[in-house]
């Protein structure tokens, strides 16, 4: 396994303000690595450290085994980056932005670039100040991938894109990975990340709370079971079962989040003569929201 991105005990503070604290990350070649966290959790700070835009307070980061500050030129040659808050020059057109980046990067063959312009229906001829947020974001995507980078670092990439373009963008990420690239995808959109990512890290309040494969997280994620009863039912017997959390108890309806075997739940429910039962598969959203909500920071888990 070739590690493309690694961070050990990476810490960044801004005066007395917390940035990120002791972040450990490892991204293997060919991964789509989802980096999840609520707004202000430290995602962009981590990315700026990995791209050499910012200096760490302590700890180390490596990209392709190189130092993001000392070897920034070599890393930037092999990396494509879409910032979270993309700012374009308002008076310049998309084409002027793209031409500038292509010239500096030495992109001679524009076949891939032209293909992306068609696929994403990018308007390159108007000044960027006249474009919608989504259309400006498409230009940012072009700038990030036009040179077929080995590593693509994307900070909230689908922000402002319509669902069709989001879908197209997911295809693009998979295509890039199929040609050997690695994707570091930062987002607060749980759905987006769980659809495309192979591994996921969750950051909260500057601390990494979990790192694992999506499959392993899914196995750990609770299933949801909803019972309907003819009479008002007491949820307490359910709450006492190990691995069960009562999500909602609304008189005749009880919703449970379940980790583990379902038999004990069914036995308790059977005594209450349920009218109906609806079971939903493992829900990552529920797991992620648990991490988001949890005030205590757990010890980071890494399945790899």
């Amino acid at each position: 396994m070739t590690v493309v991105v690694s961070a050990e005990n990476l810490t960044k503070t801004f005066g007395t303000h917390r940035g990120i604290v002791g972040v450990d990350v490892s991204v293997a070649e060919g991964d789509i690595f989802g980096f999840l966290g609520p707004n202000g959790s430290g995602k962009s700070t981590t990315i700026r450290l990995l791209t050499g835009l910012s200096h760490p307070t302590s700890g180390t980061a490596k990209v392709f085994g190189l130092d993001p500050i000392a070897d920034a030129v070599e890393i930037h040659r092999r990396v494509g980056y879409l910032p979270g808050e993309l700012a374009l020059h308002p008076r310049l057109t998309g084409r002027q932005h793209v031409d500038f980046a292509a010239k500096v990067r030495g992109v001679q063959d524009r076949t891939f670039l032209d293909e992306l312009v068609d696929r994403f229906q990018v308007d390159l001829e108007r000044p960027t100040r006249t474009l919608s947020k989504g259309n400006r974001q498409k230009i940012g995507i072009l700038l990030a991938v036009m040179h077929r980078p080995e590593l693509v670092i994307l900070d909230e990439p689908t922000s402002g894109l319509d669902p069709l373009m989001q879908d197209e963008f997911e295809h693009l990420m998979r295509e890039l990975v199929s040609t050997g690239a690695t994707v570091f995808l930062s987002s607060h959109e749980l759905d987006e990340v769980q659809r495309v990512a192979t591994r996921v890290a969750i950051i909260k309040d500057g601390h990494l709370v979990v790192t694992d494969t999506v499959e392993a997280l899914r196995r750990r994620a609770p299933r949801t079971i909803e019972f309907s009863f003819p009479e008002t039912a007491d949820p307490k017997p359910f709450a006492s079962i190990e691995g069960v959390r009562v999500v909602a108890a609304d008189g005749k309806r009880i919703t449970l989040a379940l980790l583990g075997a379902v038999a004990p739940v069914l036995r308790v429910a059977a005594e209450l003569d349920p009218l109906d039962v609806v079971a939903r598969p493992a829900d990552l959203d529920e797991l992620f929201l648990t991490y988001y909500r949890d005030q205590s920071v757990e010890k980071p888990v890494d399945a790899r």
Partner: protein
Amino acid sequence: MRAEIAVLDLQLRRRALLSYVAGMALYALVIVALYPQFKGATSLDQLTKNGSPIAALFGATGSLTSPSGWLDANIYENFLPLIMLLITVGYGASCIAGQDEDGTLSLVTILPMSRRAVVLQKVGALTVQALLLAIATMGCVLIGRQFDLSFPIAHLAGLSLGVALLGVDFGLCALAVGSITGSRGAALGFTAPVIAWIRPARYVSLFYWSVGNQQLANGLSLASVGVLISVGALLTLTAVAGFRRLDLH
């Protein structure tokens, strides 16, 4: 040497720069065209005699009615440096710190180019802007030779170089402060008082070495060029060192 970033920045400032240059050129043309009406008014020289307050107000250091005194008092010791500093200090404060504050610098800093190269290209763009203003003004002043303004062309070229270097140095001061702090406000807030403080001084003043020592009459000395370029080189090194340490958005 690569120049993509310098070209981009000049493209971004094209409108403002051309407006300043056109305005300054027009003003210079008016001044040289007015000279024949004033060259015989020697009573004006009394105003600036013996370093009077009026002389200080105009920045004049010699006879007002001599060709060099007329050009110094009306263009080279006051108005041109003012416009020059508006352009160069404005650019110096915005090209690193300002662009980082508005987020557009990341379009450049993520490219495979060292921070040193980025600063050097910004210095290049700064120099081009200063030279453009100085040369355009010089071109218009040269037309003054048709209006009885006689002076050695080499001295005018030297003075134009001096005022361009003056602009570059103060632009670099703003650029260096912006590179260290990442703040456009700090860059402007530091450079403006330095200009005001340093201007009346003599040997420690960049104004003295560039425009304040009757350069049109006597020529720009090699010592002056040396001082102005040395200060610029020192400020460039400071800007590179500051930018290397700066945390960017």
